[in-house]
């Protein structure tokens, strides 16, 4: 790892101010992706600004079906929240299958979303839940937030402080993990709620998370796994690698979508 300067931010304002003074700083939350990347010398931020101790970014609030999750909330906390599970069990289940138990104790929802790894789970949830990403500057619709592989609408010094969404009437996430890394090879989040039906796919797309309009339309007219049997999953838009080519991933997308619909009930 190249050398860096570590700062523990006490507030969002403090974090932004520290970032302003740094040459090439980076915010770090759980660090479960950033630190391995730095260890491999593939990232070399001059400064690391730790957001894990910013109290205002923590916690889960559920009011009726309105959910707010602080960006600094760990995957383990999302998984374990009884209140959240009552409103939106699908996101708790999703969080319980990110990485492994140790990673879930450190990794945070904000960090995952800001990184937008094309095989991460949360981006699919945000898109399928029609979530809003709240930053220190503005509120961004998930549809506008994820702009491509490892790319988001965030500015360099912008911090995600929380995410909010309306818990759907039905929702579930089904993932086929990469056999080696256990990241998603294809993960599909489906939801049916006030904003209609949404289907978001992670892991498989050649440019990161995406929504699948044809499956959304099919499920909107018939919320049943059989409804997507004839949907076309275009393999040309999907990744090929040593773990599976794009035709296999296309198959997985459909199978995971079906299983998610079945799990959602």
């Amino acid at each position, binding site marked *: 790892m190249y050398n860096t300067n570590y700062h523990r931010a006490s507030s969002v304002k403090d974090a932004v101010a520290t970032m302003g003074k740094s040459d090439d700083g980076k915010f770090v939350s759980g660090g479960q992706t950033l630190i391995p990347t730095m260890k491999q010398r593939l990232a070399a931020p001059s400064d690391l600004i730790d957001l894990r101790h910013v109290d205002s970014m923590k916690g889960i609030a559920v009011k009726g079906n309105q959910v707010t999750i602080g960006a600094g909330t760990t995957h383990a906390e999302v998984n374990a929240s009884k209140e959240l599970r009552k409103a939106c069990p699908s996101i708790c289940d999703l969080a319980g299958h990110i990485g492994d138990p140790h990673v879930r104790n450190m990794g945070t929802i904000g960090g995952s979303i800001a990184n937008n790894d094309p095989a991460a789970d949360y981006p699919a949830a945000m898109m399928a839940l029609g979530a809003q990403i709240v930053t220190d500057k503005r509120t961004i619709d998930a549809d506008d937030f994820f702009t491509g592989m490892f790319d988001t609408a965030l500015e360099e010094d912008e911090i995600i402080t929380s995410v909010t969404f309306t818990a759907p009437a039905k929702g579930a996430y089904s993932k*086929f993990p990469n*056999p*080696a890394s256990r990241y998603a090879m294809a993960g599909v989040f489906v939801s049916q709620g006030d904003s209609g039906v949404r289907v978001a796919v992670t892991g498989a797309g050649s440019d990161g998370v995406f929504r699948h309009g044809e499956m959304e339309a099919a499920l909107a007219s018939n919320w049943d796994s059989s409804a997507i049997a004839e949907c076309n999953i275009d393999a040309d838009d999907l990744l090929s690698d*040593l*773990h599976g080519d794009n035709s*296999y991933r296309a*198959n997985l997308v459909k199978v995971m979508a079906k299983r998610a619909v079945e799990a959602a009930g």
Partner: protein
Amino acid sequence: MSEGIGARVLRKEDKRFITGNGKYTDDVTNHGQCYAAFVRSPHAHANVKSIDKSTAEKMMGVEGVFDGHQLTADGIGNIICGWAVNSKDGSPMNMGAWSALATNKVRYVGDAVAVVIADSPSNAKSAAEAVGVEYEVLSSVTNAAKALENGVEQIHPEAPNNLIFDWEIGEKDPTEVAIAGAAHVTEMTITNNRVSPNPMEPRSAVATFDASEDHYTLYTTSQNPHVARLVLSAFYQVAPEHKLRVIAPDVGGGFGAKIYIYPEEIVCLWASMKTKRSVKWTADRTEAFLTDAHGRDHVSTARMGFDANNKIVGFAVDTIANLGAYMSLFSSSVPTYLYATLLSGQYNIENIHCNVRTVYTNTTPVDAYRGAGRPEACFLIERMMETAARELGVDPAELRRANFVCEFPHQTPVIMAYDSGDFEANLEASMKASDYKGFETRRAEAASRGKLRGIGMSSYIEACGIAPSAAVGSLGAGVGLWESAEVRVNPVGTLEVLTGSHSHGQGHETTFAQLISDRFGLPSDNVQIVHGDTDKVQFGMGTYGSRSGAVGMSAIVKALDKVEAKAKKIAAHMLEADEGDIVIENGEVKVAGTDKTLGWHEVCLGAYTAHNLPEGMEPGLKEGAFYDPSNFTFPAGCYICEVEIDPDTGTVEIVQFVASDDFGTIINPMIVEGQVHGGIAQGVGQALLEEAVYDDNGQLLTGSYMDYTMPRADNLPSYTVSHETTICPGNPLGIKGCGEAGAIGSPPAVINAITNAIGNNDISMPATPSKVWAAIQATQSKQAAE
């Protein structure tokens, strides 16, 4: 509770490991220690035009930057292959030069060209990045068959067409005649996938040169520290043997990868002399993937002929083995004497012929990995047998049974003389334990849940107890493969047993102590097993090839025989009895049929006070022995695997795995079962998950756990393990060996089960979900077309 032979004694070594007090090489820290970082080739094949060290030399904390020209100038020798295998025309193998730091040419990604020694790992790494190496990139080849084609880039000038040797075993003409006259011939092309051993402890070395004594000490992750010292001294000229101490302390798994003496250990020793500092190097996992010797990587075409009674009449095999960029220490023996000599399997086959071509490619060197040659042979035979049974329309178990060797000794046409076994007993035991008969009911039940269920078996045999020195010497081995032991009895009756075997997870400290408990009736706590230090143990050949029981413990038995004989002489003298009437049991030395008794400690003390010894006897009680085995040993068994496959995703779940093994005498069943569990997991890993994959430019795509699939707990089932024992007649304890069996027997059982489930025989290892799904699709479209 008895602590003798056959007792499930809990491990003595566990306490330090479970409390975090194990001492591994990277845990060793010396005063003023520096760290080595290697500059490695990013290219699979390139000429090295120049190396510019000037920037790196001036960087923070750097003690020295060294390259291969300096290494050569200091007289450090090339790395050698220790087993000479001639081509069938009698010509010697075409071994290319391998310098610990490449001078003019790099031949695989990860090939080291220079080393930086600095005061911290980070400073060493930063300086290594600043070493400027100018490469002229050459075309590269990673596939062995392709490397043999005309017009492919030559990797070593010594090896035209990249061919190392073209070797054969068995009689070609009679085999061809037999197959030509066969009623049925099964023919297959079978790939044995390249894997990376992945002991969880990465390789590490801590080298210290003491200028005042002109003496070197090397802590290293080795399965055989004495062999390391011998090779470092005699071949690489790092230091004479008496000036080099090699210590392999606690070693975190080996599986073959830690047999060899790698460039890093040589360079650390030499760099310690150059810098007058203690030098530490510990691989990160990516370095381990790039530089730890890989395993397997065979492609074979095979034909097996059967007569009208389904008896095998001939077996012809043509194998191409990829040895990577350089010939590693035992690389030549793996695809020859450890492979083709096992091609008779458990079967009575009169005619066998195997041709093996070994090939250089621009990949990590390939050498022995758990099983070493025998898994390749077993996979070939057992896939052939399963396929033949399906083609012939007979039950796979029946086809095997019809061809089993039933009488011993049995001379195969490929050198090996099987000394004992009961293959049918293993088959029966596995079929019973797996409820083989009830399988179709389970298949139907699985189908009702939308799952494809399959069953597959594998009847394996292997050769262990490596090996009779004269025999392997006649076949080209550069060393003898005996083992040594020394038993030191202290005046108070406690014992130290020094062994040339090395434990890196096998539990020798427990198992070996059981021999003493068994012999003298002493608590195993009274015994200390000493290993892994060339200053303590006089010599040893180390642990690999499932040899520590059959060879290592046999040496201890020989030394114990001598100790017992002398103790009896002393006791007879002290008790004024006839030597032949003395018995030693329960820690007492008695005259049979009388109440005359001495405590064991009294006899031992007598040996050292020497106040009352028989006329002319030397004082003391300490004996050494060298044991050279008279034959290989032949563990064998039958494994049955049952899988369920999700046809929508191709995911394979192992729902049952049954093993019945014949390991001869078992000293500690708990430890032996653990060896089988671990071996099966590695075999299942090879069959389902693991593969070292290169891209077209020779870049290793599976260089971390992000892409190389290690078996995890949720990939594996609990195993059902049992034993059917026939005693090995070749050594004093009757031991056959157990370390590799699991990894040898399991891959064909898994693949046979998968192909049985999906009705498509065309599956290569690893049977990943995407491959299995594609095979299911192929079957379905074929069925639809019909």
